[in-house]
């Protein structure tokens, strides 16, 4: 060992290298418009799924659902006689990485992009897809802004959004539980837009929001928040906290036994955030699908999923994987209906498309809103199942809200889709 001192400067130099190694920095690739790919080649999809960061776990569950839909189509010969290929890369729950990977996938001839959990990442991918006219399926980001101010002619949004879930939950809670609400908001687009929607619903129902505590992403210690909540004493806490953050929150709330009073309404709970921690599940929460729904097709889908998902960590599909599967399946069906791989024809085949409840394994018929490109669908409210039928049966479904009752009219007012002529054409 030398006598040379190990200085702070050297430590900081080291950290800079470490940061670079971790993949910081974004590369914005060349722009191109109006693409056509060889029609004899397979159709290539770019799957933009998180494998790390706040939504790493959910991103991989999304990927499983997408891959199963692709495998099903390939097993019957592909689409329009062409096989479907896919590539994927970790979008790291990071908008800059999302931009970089979307650019890379388009450079590598991916004609359609699929996958998202984080609204910032989804919006970043949308910006890239917009430039190229590349169809993008936002499978799981549920920020109302995705079908509102950030909507796009090339993007389709498959999950229920924060407003849908708020509409399903808030009115009865104001009436039955209390008027004083506290918002707990993940400090990024989804959290803000979801809490804004909740606030609107609370005030419309005669309640009032007494405080809004912002939760920075990657918060692991919620003690300060839980102390503050106890000091404020609201009737209801409406939480719009997701991913690993909500897992930590749930564990800490359960530890303190604060899960009963005040009442908790968790806007939406994703299955990968619940799996492994059912004992910390509390309050009322929203979802758009559950693997124990007593509906035709559900057991068969679950069985197929379990067979095809491979060595996945979660033994049964949840809402995230379901959305990935449904989005991809409907896209490939739309290509078949359009009889073409032209992006505008595919978009037209998707817009306004009606999906029967039985086909989507939900309670009510769904449709793709032609004005916002959001799938309007059944919204379920659930709570922890007090009498589970097996070790995967974590939810008790409390209510089913029709797409019409849960409709997000505010987003529709903000969404302005560009005319088809302004979209660069792509032939996959």
């Amino acid at each position, binding site marked *: *060992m*030398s*006598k040379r*001192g*190990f*200085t*702070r*400067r*050297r*430590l*900081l*130099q*080291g*950290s800079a*290298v*470490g940061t670079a*190694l971790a993949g910081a920095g974004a590369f914005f690739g060349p722009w191109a418009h109006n693409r056509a790919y060889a029609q004899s080649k397979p159709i290539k999809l770019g799957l933009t799924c998180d494998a*790390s*960061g706040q939504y*790493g*776990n959910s991103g*991989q569950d999304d990927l499983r659902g997408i891959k199963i839909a692709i495998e099903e189509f390939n097993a019957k010969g592909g689409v329009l006689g062409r096989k479907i290929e896919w590539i994927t890369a970790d979008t790291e729950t990071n908008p800059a990485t999302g931009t970089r990977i979307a650019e890379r996938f388009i450079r590598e001839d991916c004609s359609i992009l699929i996958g998202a959990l984080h609204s910032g990442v989804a919006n970043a991918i949308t910006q890239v897809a917009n430039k190229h006219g590349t169809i993008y399926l936002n499978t799981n980001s549920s920020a109302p802004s995705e079908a509102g101010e950030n909507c796009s002619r090339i993007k389709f949004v498959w999950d229920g959004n924060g407003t849908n879930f708020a509409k399903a939950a808030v009115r009865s809670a104001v009436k039955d539980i209390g008027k004083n609400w506290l918002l707990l908001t993940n*400090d990024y687009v989804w959290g803000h837009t979801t809490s804004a929607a909740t606030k609107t619903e609370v005030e419309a129902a005669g309640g009032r929001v007494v405080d809004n*505590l*912002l*939760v*920075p*992403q*990657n*918060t*692991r*210690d919620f*003690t*300060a*928040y839980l*102390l*503050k909540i*106890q*000091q404020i004493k609201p009737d209801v806490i409406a939480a719009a906290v997701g991913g*690993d953050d909500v*897992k*930590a929150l749930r*564990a*800490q709330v359960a*530890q*303190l*036994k*604060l899960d009963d009073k005040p009442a908790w309404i968790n806007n939406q709970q994703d299955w990968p955030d619940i*799996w*492994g*921690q059912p*004992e*910390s599940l509390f309050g009322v929460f929203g979802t758009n699908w559950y693997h124990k729904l007593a509906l035709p097709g559900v057991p068969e889908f679950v069985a197929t999923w379990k067979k095809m998902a491979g060595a996945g*960590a*979660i033994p049964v599909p949840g809402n995230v994987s379901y959305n990935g599967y449904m989005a991809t399946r409907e896209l490939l069906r739309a290509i078949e209906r359009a009889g073409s791989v032209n992006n505008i024809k595919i978009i037209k085949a998707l817009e306004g498309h009606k999906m029967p409840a039985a086909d989507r394994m939900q309670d009510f018929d769904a449709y793709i809103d032609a004005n916002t490109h959001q799938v309007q669908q059944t919204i379920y409210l659930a709570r922890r199942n007090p009498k589970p039928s097996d070790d995967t049966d974590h939810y008790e479904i409390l209510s089913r809200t029709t797409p019409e009752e849960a409709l997000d009219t505010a987003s529709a007012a903000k969404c302005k889709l560009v005319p088809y002529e302004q979209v660069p054409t792509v032939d996959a």
Partner: protein
Amino acid sequence: MVFNLLPHLINGLTLGLLFALIALGFMLIVGVMEQINLAHGSLFALGAYVALVLVGPKPPLPLGIAEWWLAQPLGLRYALTLALAPAVVGLVGIAVELLMRRTYGKDPLFGLLLTFGVAMVIEESIRLIWGTRDYVLPTPPAISGGFIALDLIWSAYRFYAAAIAALVIGLTWLLIEKTPYGSIIKAGAHDSEMVRALGIDLSKLRSAVFVLGTMLAAVAGIILAPIWGIRPHMGVDAVVPAFLVIVLGGVGSFWGAVAAGLMVGMVVGLSGAYASEWSMLSMYLLLVAVVTVRARGLFGKKSILEA
């Protein structure tokens, strides 16, 4: 007003002790071995996973021993795990230190690259062995649940965790300051050639320090696991604040790391209560503020540029 503030001051203090615990092993290796151990976070995570296996219902032990082990009350198993799991992670530390030997005396960036690779290998190995799902570390009833004080419900585990952090910090200080081994470690850090000239085996010394650092990382992982949850990338959540705390406290300073941990805890705790959107950013702002007026951190050694 003061009554409202008091819970948040207490919270800041306990959080600060946890931050100091997270940084302790990292500080030891940087301060004594002049190596940035980027695997610190992964070793932190590994400690939590090994503890999960030992406390859980299927410990990987021979049948007879496993039966005896599972017959013991959870409290005893948990207490023994607090010693056993860091020992297991210490074995991994020995292997990593053997790999690092080729980097000694060279540019520290080599060590940094190596430990970055080790961190990736450990994290991916965790994914392969335990999968990507989350786990909860069972804790004995005596340290679980809540209690009421100041008209608020408090987490019993959090105070237990802060007490363990204080104990581990105290024991580490005693080892370094009050034992002959600590004197040799400090001498090795100050003038390694002189230590070697005195006939002390420097490679064993380095190995011992590195293993101690990895064991401290594992202890921190076990203690934080019931609060943060156990998942493969939990190490990333630990390595960033650990790094920040040692830069803020001054590289190589034991009490600097402890003081910095407490400061960070206090700032994060108070901002979480009164300006929650700043709670994550506040620690970085604190670092910028301190380093701007005192480049070497709170208790760092004076640079020749400051002479």
